[in-house]
């Protein structure tokens, strides 16, 4: 866990809090775009749609050392993104905007540069295998796919969980989390964080 000066885990901030903040801040501009030609207004979070899971609703920001792990951080960011995007999509004021949570799959970006030596070797060894199995997307192709997701009529309005080929991701877990009321908790928590950090200029301390 790496804590930012604002009291949030850096990964969670980059993958969830920061992205949602962009989306909510720019709603006026997105709404304006949705009502004017060419009626295109879309928010895409490139993360891990379809990989939602049970997450710790009593420690959403994973501040307790015992709660934090890489997997938990991924799980939280992914689940909270889907739930909050859904919340935004359900708001009638955002009717013409679509919120897309994408799972790009394995993409050959230069993403390993911050990893340790051994891990780098493991990752580069995995790439050709993934490629042969047809599971590796080139960065260029991923860019094309995301532009397609960003402009296709298919994703005109609402919330979408999209996989590497532009297919609909499995949403059973997401639907269950939503039914259980996790979305409300996440939204309340997110607003609390924004209020503390952005509103009051304070560090978030749980």
């Amino acid at each position, binding site marked *: 866990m790496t804590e*930012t*000066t*604002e009291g949030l885990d*850096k*990964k969670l*901030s*980059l*993958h969830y809090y*920061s992205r949602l*903040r*962009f*989306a909510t*801040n*720019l709603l*006026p*501009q997105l709404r*304006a*775009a949705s009502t004017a*030609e*060419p009626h*295109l*207004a*879309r*928010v*895409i*979070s*490139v*993360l*891990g749609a379809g*990989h939602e899971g049970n997450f710790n609703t009593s420690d959403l920001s994973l501040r307790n050392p015992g709660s934090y792990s*890489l*997997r938990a951080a*991924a799980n939280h960011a992914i689940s909270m993104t889907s739930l909050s995007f859904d919340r935004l999509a359900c708001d009638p004021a955002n009717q013409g905007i679509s919120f897309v949570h994408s*799972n*790009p799959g*394995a*993409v050959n*970006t*230069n*993403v*390993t*540069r*911050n990893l340790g030596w051994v*891990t780098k070797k493991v*990752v580069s060894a*995995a790439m050709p295998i993934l490629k042969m199995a047809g599971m590796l997307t080139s*960065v*260029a192709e*991923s*860019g*094309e796919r*995301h*532009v397609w997701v*960003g*402009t296709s009529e298919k994703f005109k309005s609402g919330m979408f969980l999209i996989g590497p080929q532009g297919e609909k991701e499995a949403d059973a877990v997401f639907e269950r989390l939503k039914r259980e009321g996790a979305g409300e908790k996440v939204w309340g928590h997110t607003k609390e*964080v*924004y209020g503390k*950090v*952005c509103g009051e*200029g304070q560090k978030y301390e749980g």
Partner: protein
Amino acid sequence: MHLVGGTSGIGESTAREFIRHAQAPRVYLVGRSQEQADHLTTEFKELNGEAQTHFIKSDVSLLRNVDEVCKEISAKEEKVNLLVLSAGILTMKGRDGMLSCNFPVHCRYCLYPDVNRK
């Protein structure tokens, strides 16, 4: 079209494809690397002579920085068509032993405002 994007990885490649296909696109790249952004600005101009690329240097892991960036963008743009959020740090999702190298390392966001599609 207005796109806000990043300076490397999927954010960068999305911005590139966007520029290639859009008419008079205006792109905001948000990230930490001026050098990368400069390369992309030059490249995008060659790809599409009508493209306008603006770079906003910021570390968006901090929410207050996000607010500053958004303030700057909303002062310049009435409309935003595409907001592509792809900043992140590599995580290893090892449930089935597969490495998912999803996330580009540098911060990047793509906003593509006001596009007229070809």
